[in-house]
């Protein structure tokens, strides 16, 4: 407990760094997954390749990826961008399938009603298909959020700041409190983000909480 009280600024710093790395990755994964998921949903020929390809990305071990990425994208080994890019790739790997499944699940009568009413295609996608796929996409996004927050700690092995540095440092210096703080805060952060997404989902998709027959 004393260790925590003595190191509050350090903990705040690491938490901030952790968020600054994982949040952009989660957001980027969402932005990239929507068009990819749409392709898989819209073109049956692309369905297999896109979804399998995305799934395989998740099979790439994270440590080698952190080492290979700087070579591929021309960043320094310790650059935080590597971690953001790697986490984005893992996020996309998980999320593309949710987006495709969500779009597949849009009720066909809602879609043809939108056509009959005179929605232009892009507007129909953005204001009918996407919101109706929302609940499925959201559940995928929650998994991505939690997994990203947890994976983010791996960057600590390369010395990139995150809550993960609390375990590596604590381990090297034999400070149990520091290790525990790192673990607990990672879990708390993941849970908080998950709760936040659920709350945002309820705000953005009010029809999902409307009670039937109310």
């Amino acid at each position: 407990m004393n260790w925590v009280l003595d190191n509050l600024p350090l903990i705040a710093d690491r938490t901030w760094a952790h968020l600054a790395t994982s949040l952009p990755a989660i957001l980027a994964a969402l932005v990239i997954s929507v068009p990819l998921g749409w392709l898989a949903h819209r073109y049956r020929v692309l369905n297999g390749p896109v979804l399998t390809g995305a799934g395989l990305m998740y099979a790439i071990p994270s440590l080698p990826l952190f080492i290979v990425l700087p070579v591929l994208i021309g960043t320094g080994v310790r650059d935080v961008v590597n971690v953001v890019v790697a986490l984005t790739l893992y996020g996309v790997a998980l999320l593309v399938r949710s987006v495709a499944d969500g779009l597949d699940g849009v009720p066909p009568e809602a879609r043809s009603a939108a056509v009959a009413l005179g929605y232009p295609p892009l507007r129909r996608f953005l204001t009918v298909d996407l919101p109706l796929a929302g609940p499925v996409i959201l559940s995928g996004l929650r998994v991505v959020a939690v997994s990203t927050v947890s994976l983010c700690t791996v960057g600590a092995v390369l010395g990139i700041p995150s809550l993960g540095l609390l375990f590596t440092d604590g381990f090297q210096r034999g400070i149990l409190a520091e290790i525990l703080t790192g673990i607990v805060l990672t879990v708390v952060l993941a849970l908080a983000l998950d709760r936040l997404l659920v709350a945002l989902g309820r705000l953005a998709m009010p029809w999902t909480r409307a009670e039937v027959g109310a």
Partner: protein
Amino acid sequence: MISYRSVTKRFADGTVAVQDFSLDVPRGTLTVLAGSSGCGKTTLMRMVNRMVDPSSGQVLVDGEDVAGRDPVALRRRIGYVMQNSGLLPHRTVAQNIATVPRLNGVDRRAARRRTGEMMELVGLDAKLADRYPAQLSGGQQQRVGVARGLAADPDILLMDEPFGAVDPLVRSELQRQLRQLHGQIGTTILFVTHDMDEALALGDQIVLLRAGADIAQQGTPREFVAEPANDFVRTFLGLDRGQRTLHRERAADGSIVVVDAHGRPAGVLAEPDGRPDDGARPGAMADGGPRPGTQDAPGA
């Protein structure tokens, strides 16, 4: 006015849904396309707003071939009401009704006002405006569907089995109100159904279709019942089973009840003291709300 000119629709898999079909739907009438599922009636209806394009032939709206019109703009000029209401589940009643006006760029306040008018027109309680479709009964959903179809004040309203999924009592009430509404607003309505009772109750003109959209008979409800063109029409009407052959019976209170071949009362014959003559026109069976006879006939 909608005109089909030798329209054929062949789908990619080779099925011919519509073969050389021609028909005029006069302005301001309610025309019913009736037939079993798979006869091509929905395909025909969807050609009007270009959800389906014919393989050959033309569909004209007010003399102009729809093939030359932008589908999105065309659809916003034509109301569409579908089975199971087709409401957008993520939008409230008010938002659903305001869809086309909003797509056309009408501002929020004007759209809201229009929504209120439409809800009143179709008999929806204003309190339902902020509900989601899943919170409504089947009958209410269909009313919202009709209100949405009419919100942009279209010249043509397409109705694809709109009352197919509601219970019989609500259905006959919706039919009665649709007739009344049609008299009030005079929109040209093209109505698809497989239910001949519904066709008889609603149509100014009925077009009964066989497979491939082959016209078995075209005429008024009266003509259908009085002069069925062939055995197909007789079977479809239920005439071959005697369901529409009526005879008179005297009820316990002395009134004369009209009864079909199964002994089901169809109505009360007019009394000399001037009670309404509900049973005179066969097509009028569902004209007066709940069928006379099933509820009102004293001898039933």
